C-alpha cells in the first residue's frame, strides 16, 4: 500500500494553493458542460444512447467468462497470442520474457491506463529497456516524473511554462513556452522513437468477442503508429473492455468521444483484427512480414468485481473522465489527491478494486455526493452510490473509528440524542469543541471563516407542533409530517410553515413524537447497522399513525425513506415489506404541494411579483428525486416574487452529507461559487427546498451578503397565506 502514509489534508491544502491548477481546472469546469452538450446536438436521444451503453455492458458482465473465452478463441484463431494475466507481476513477467526472447530494446507506448495501474514502465526501464510514452500528455508527465492528474488529459495540471521547462531539461536544449512549437518538438522527437521501436504497447478501448478485434481511439495518431510501425504489437486490455459483437461498439463510440473531448469522433478510431502486415528492413531491403500480435487480457481485480452484485457496475465505465469534469471537488483539487492513477469518484472505486482498499479509505470522503456525475456518465454508473457501498463495507471490515462509533450510538438512540440536542441550545454542551462536534449531523458542522453556523432553536418543532397545527374538521388527507433533525431542532419556523400550508389545503397534520434522524449522516459514514435501527424506529412510529401521506420537506429525508430504507432492509423480508409499503406513501413537500395547488387551480405562474427570487436546486432534489419544475411553479405563482435563474442553479452548494462537515476547506470554495452566482442573479431572496442547503447558503450569505435572505419554499408559501389573511 504505497500511499498509506499520506497526509491527505495537507495535500488538499497544497492543491488549493496551486494557482495554475485551480485556474486550469476552473476554466475547464466552466467550458466543459456547454461543449459536451454541443457535441450531442445531433444525437436524438442521449438518454436512450446512455441506456444502450449501460445495457450492453451489463449484459456482457453477466457472462464475462463466456465472452472472454470467445474473444480469446477468435483472436487466437487469427494468429494472435493471448495471455491472461491475473495481476501485475504476471503481466510484467510475460512482457519481460517476451522482450528478452525477441531481443527487444526499444518500446513505444500509446496510452494504456491498465499499464499505469501497475507502474509497468518502471519495471521495463529497470530491465534496461528504452520506453517512450507517445501520447503527448503522457510523455509530458513521464518526463516530469508525475502521475496523470486526469484520465483523458493527464497533464492538465501543468501550464506551458512548466511544460517548456520539462522539455528543455529532457532534450537538453532551450525550448520556448510556445505550444505549437512544443508540439512539433514532440512530433520530431517521438517520430524517431516510432521508427526505431522494436515493440509497440497499446491499450484498447474495446475488445470484440465475435472476431477477436481490438478498437483504439486516439486524436494524435500515436495509437495508429504504435500499432503499425514496430514488428511486435502488445495490446493490454482489461476484462471490462470486452463486448460481444462489433455492433456493440456503436454506443461506446457515439458517447466516448463526445463525453471525453466533446468531439463527434476522435481523429483516429482504429480496429485491429488479427496480425496485420508490417514492413521491416533487412540488409537495406524492405520486406513485408506478418506482425506479431500479443494480447494481454488483464484481470487485477476485475473478475472479482464482475462477480460482485454491486461492483460489477464498474464494467459500465468507458474511461471518458466526464465524471471528473463535472465534479466540484475535482475542480478544486485535481487528480493527484486521489493518490493512485484513477482520479475522481470513479477513481476512488477503481482504486479500491484495482489497487487497495487502504487507498480508498483516504479518499472516499472526497465524494460530496452531489450526483452531477450520474447525469453525464455514458454508462450511467451510480458513482456516489458505489462509494457509499464501499464505505459500508469498509466500516464492516475495519470497524468505525472509536469516537465515531460512540457518537452514532448516541444518534441512533433517539431519546439520548434529542436530550443532547436540547441541551446544546444552551451552549454548555461539549458540542462546541473537540471531536464530537464534527461528527454529529449536519447542523453541528465545523466552524469556518466564510460560513456562520446556525444556532439550535430555543424550542424544537416537536414541542410546538400541537399548538401550531390548525387541523380541519373534515380533512381531505391525513398527513404525517417527518421533519428531519434540521426542521425539528434548527429551523422549527420552517416546519411550522409546512404545517400552515398543509392545513390551508384542508389537510390534517400529525407529528409522530417517536420519529428521529433519518439516518443519512450515519450511513454516510458507512454505519449500516445503526442506520437500520433508526429506519425501523421511524417506520414503526409512522405505521402507528396510519397516515394517507408521509411528508418530508427535505429531499434527503425523502430519499432515505423511499430508497435507502427498503434497500438496507432487503435481507429481512418482514421489514423489507413494511419499508416498501410505507415508502409508497412518502412525498416531498414542493412536488406534493405543487400538485395540490394545480388541482385547486392555484398555480397562477404569473411570475409578476416585485421582489426577485432565485431558486437553488438541491443535488438530491434535482438528481435523485428529479424535482426541479415544481418548486419553480410554486414560486412563479406567488404575488410577491418574480423568479430569476442564477448561473449553475443546480450546482452543489458544498454541504452534502459528511463532506461539508469534515472538509470545510473544500466545502467553502464550492459555497463561495454559489454565493457569487446568487449575488450575480440580482435576487434578494434565495429559495431552497432543502434544509441542509438552507443551512449552508444561509451560513455563507450571513458572512458575505447579509442583505440576501434564504427561505425554504414552505416559508414563502406561508408568507403568501399570511398576506392573504390580512
Amino acid at each position, binding site marked *: 500500500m504505497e500511499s498509506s502514509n499520506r497526509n491527505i489534508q495537507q495535500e488538499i491544502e497544497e492543491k488549493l494553493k496551486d494557482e495554475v491548477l485551480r485556474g486550469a481546472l476552473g476554466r475547464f469546469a466552466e467550458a466543459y458542460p456547454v461543449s459536451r452538450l454541443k457535441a450531442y446536438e445531433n444525437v436524438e436521444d442521449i438518454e436512450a444512447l446512455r441506456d444502450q451503453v449501460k445495457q450492453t455492458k451489463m449484459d456482457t458482465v453477466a457472462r464475462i467468462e463466456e465472452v472472454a473465452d470467445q474473444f480469446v478463441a477468435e483472436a487466437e484463431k487469427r494468429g494472435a497470442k493471448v495471455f491472461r494475466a491475473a495481476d501485475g507481476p504476471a503481466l510484467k513477467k510475460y512482457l519481460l520474457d517476451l522482450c528478452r526472447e525477441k531481443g527487444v530494446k526499444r518500446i513505444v507506448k500509446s496510452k494504456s491506463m491498465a499499464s499505469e495501474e501497475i507502474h509497468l514502465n518502471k519495471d521495463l526501464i529497470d530491465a534496461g529497456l528504452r520506453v517512450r510514452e507517445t501520447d*503527448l*500528455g503522457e510523455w509530458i508527465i513521464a518526463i516530469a516524473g508525475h502521475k496523470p492528474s486526469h484520465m483523458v488529459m493527464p497533464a492538465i495540471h501543468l501550464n506551458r511554462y512548466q511544460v517548456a521547462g520539462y522539455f528543455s531539461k529532457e532534450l537538453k536544449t532551450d525550448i520556448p513556452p510556445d505550444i505549437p512549437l512544443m*508540439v512539433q518538438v514532440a*512530433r520530431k522527437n*517521438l*517520430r524517431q522513437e516510432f521508427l526505431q521501436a522494436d515493440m509497440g504497447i497499446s491499450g484498447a478501448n474495446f475488445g470484440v468477442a465475435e472476431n477477436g478485434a481490438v478498437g483504439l481511439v486516439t486524436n494524435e495518431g500515436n495509437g495508429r503508429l504504435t500499432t503499425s510501425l514496430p514488428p511486435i504489437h502488445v495490446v493490454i486490455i482489461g476484462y471490462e473492455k470486452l463486448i460481444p459483437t462489433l455492433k456493440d461498439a*456503436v454506443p461506446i463510440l457515439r458517447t466516448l468521444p463526445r463525453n471525453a473531448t466533446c468531439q463527434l*469522433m476522435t481523429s483516429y478510431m482504429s480496429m485491429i*483484427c488479427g496480425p496485420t502486415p508490417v514492413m521491416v528492413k533487412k540488409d537495406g531491403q524492405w520486406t513485408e512480414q506478418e506482425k506479431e500480435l500479443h494480447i494481454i487480457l488483464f484481470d487485477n481485480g476485475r473478475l472479482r468485481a464482475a462477480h460482485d452484485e454491486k461492483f460489477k457496475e464498474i464494467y459500465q465505465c468507458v474511461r471518458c473522465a466526464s465524471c471528473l469534469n463535472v465534479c466540484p471537488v475535482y475542480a478544486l483539487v485535481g487528480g493527484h489527491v486521489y493518490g493512485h492513477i484513477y482520479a475522481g469518484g470513479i477513481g476512488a472505486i477503481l482504486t479500491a478494486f484495482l489497487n487497495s482498499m487502504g487507498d480508498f479509505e483516504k479518499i472516499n470522503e472526497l465524494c460530496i455526493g452531489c450526483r452531477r456525475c450520474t447525469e453525464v456518465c455514458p454508462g450511467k454508473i451510480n458513482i456516489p452510490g458505489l462509494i457509499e457501498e464501499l464505505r459500508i463495507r469498509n466500516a464492516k471490515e475495519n470497524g468505525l473509528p472509536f469516537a465515531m462509533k460512540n457518537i452514532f450510538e448516541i444518534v441512533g438512540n433517539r431519546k439520548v440524542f434529542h436530550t443532547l440536542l436540547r441541551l446544546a441550545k444552551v451552549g454548555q454542551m461539549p458540542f462546541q469543541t473537540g471531536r464530537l462536534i464534527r461528527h454529529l449531523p449536519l447542523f453541528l458542522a465545523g466552524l469556518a471563516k466564510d460560513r456562520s453556523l446556525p444556532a439550535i432553536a430555543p424550542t424544537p418543532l416537536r414541542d410546538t407542533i400541537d399548538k401550531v397545527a390548525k387541523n380541519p374538521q373534515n380533512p381531505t388527507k391525513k398527513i404525517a409530517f417527518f421533519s428531519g433533525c434540521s426542521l425539528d431542532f434548527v429551523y422549527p419556523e420552517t416546519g411550522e410553515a409546512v404545517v400552515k400550508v398543509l392545513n390551508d389545503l384542508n389537510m390534517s397534520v400529525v407529528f409522530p413524537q417517536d420519529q428521529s434522524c433519518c439516518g443519512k449522516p450515519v450511513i454516510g459514514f458507512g454505519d449500516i447497522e445503526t442506520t437500520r435501527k433508526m429506519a425501523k424506529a421511524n417506520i414503526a412510529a409512522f405505521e402507528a399513525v396510519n397516515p394517507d401521506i408521509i411528508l418530508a420537506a427535505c429531499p434527503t429525508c425523502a430519499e432515505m425513506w423511499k430508497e435507502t430504507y427498503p434497500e438496507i432492509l432487503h435481507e429481512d423480508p418482514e421489514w423489507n415489506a413494511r419499508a416498501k409499503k410505507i415508502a409508497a406513501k412518502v412525498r416531498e413537500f414542493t412536488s406534493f404541494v405543487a400538485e395540490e395547488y394545480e388541482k385547486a387551480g392555484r398555480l397562477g405562474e404569473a411570475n409578476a411579483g416585485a421582489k426577485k427570487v432565485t431558486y437553488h436546486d438541491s443535488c438530491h432534489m434535482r438528481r435523485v428525486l428529479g424535482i426541479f419544475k415544481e418548486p419553480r411553479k410554486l414560486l412563479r405563482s406567488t404575488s410577491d416574487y418574480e423568479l430569476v435563474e442564477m448561473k449553475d442553479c443546480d450546482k452543489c452548494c458544498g454541504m452534502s452529507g459528511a463532506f461539508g462537515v469534515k472538509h470545510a476547506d473544500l466545502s467553502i470554495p464550492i459555497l463561495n461559487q454559489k454565493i457569487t452566482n446568487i449575488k450575480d442573479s440580482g435576487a434578494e431572496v434565495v429559495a431552497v427546498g432543502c434544509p441542509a442547503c438552507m443551512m449552508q447558503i444561509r451560513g455563507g450569505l450571513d458572512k458575505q451578503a447579509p442583505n440576501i435572505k434564504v427561505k425554504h419554499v414552505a416559508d414563502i408559501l406561508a408568507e403568501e397565506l399570511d398576506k392573504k389573511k390580512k
Partner: protein
Amino acid sequence: MKKVCENWEKVLLTTTCGPEYFEEFEAKAKQASAEIFRVKTPVEAKEIITNLIKFTNAKKVVSVDNVLQQASGVNEELQAMGIELYTSQNDIAEHAETADIGISGVEFGIAETGSVCQDAYAIESRLVSMLPPVHIAFMPSSRIVPGVEQAFDVFSQVFQRGYLSLITGPSRTADIERVLTIGVHGPSRFIVIAVDEPVSGGVA
C-alpha cells in the same frame, strides 16, 4: 494490395447510404478541420492536387493505388511536373517518412461524425496516411452513410481480419493547457477529394 473487403460498394448496398448525406458529412468533417473538395469528374481532382503541390512546394509524394486517382490522371501530371512519386510497397516504406504528401483512397464517409473509413489492412495505406504532413484521400461522393450505426452494419459483415480506421480530420492534441493544436503524430492537413462521377471498377 490486402483489403478487409474486396468490394465495399457492394456491401454498402445493404445499408442506408447515398449522396444525399454528403452535405451533412461535409459540414461535420469541416468542423473537425478536414478540407473537403467535391468534384464532378476525377479529372477535376488533378488541378486541386497540382495546385496544392505548387502552393506547399512539395517535392515528394507517396501514394497507394486507387481507381479514382488513376482515373484522374494525377500521377502522370505529377511526373510531368518533376515530382518524385512513389507507389510501390517497398518505395512507400522507404520514402513515406520523408514525403511531403501522402495520397490514398477511402471507402466511405459518415455524415454524423464527418469521418471517413479507410480499409487499412495494407500497411502502405497506413504509412501514406500517417507519416507525411499532408494526407489526401479520394472518395466517391455517393458513398456516405448517415451514422456510426450504419458504418458498423457494414463492418459486421466484412471485418474478419485486418485493420480498419475511421479518420476524422487531421491529427490533433489539446494536452497542453487544452489549447487545440493540429498535427501531432499524424498529418496536420487532411484533405478529402469527393468525386461524383462513378468510376468503373467500383472499388475506390
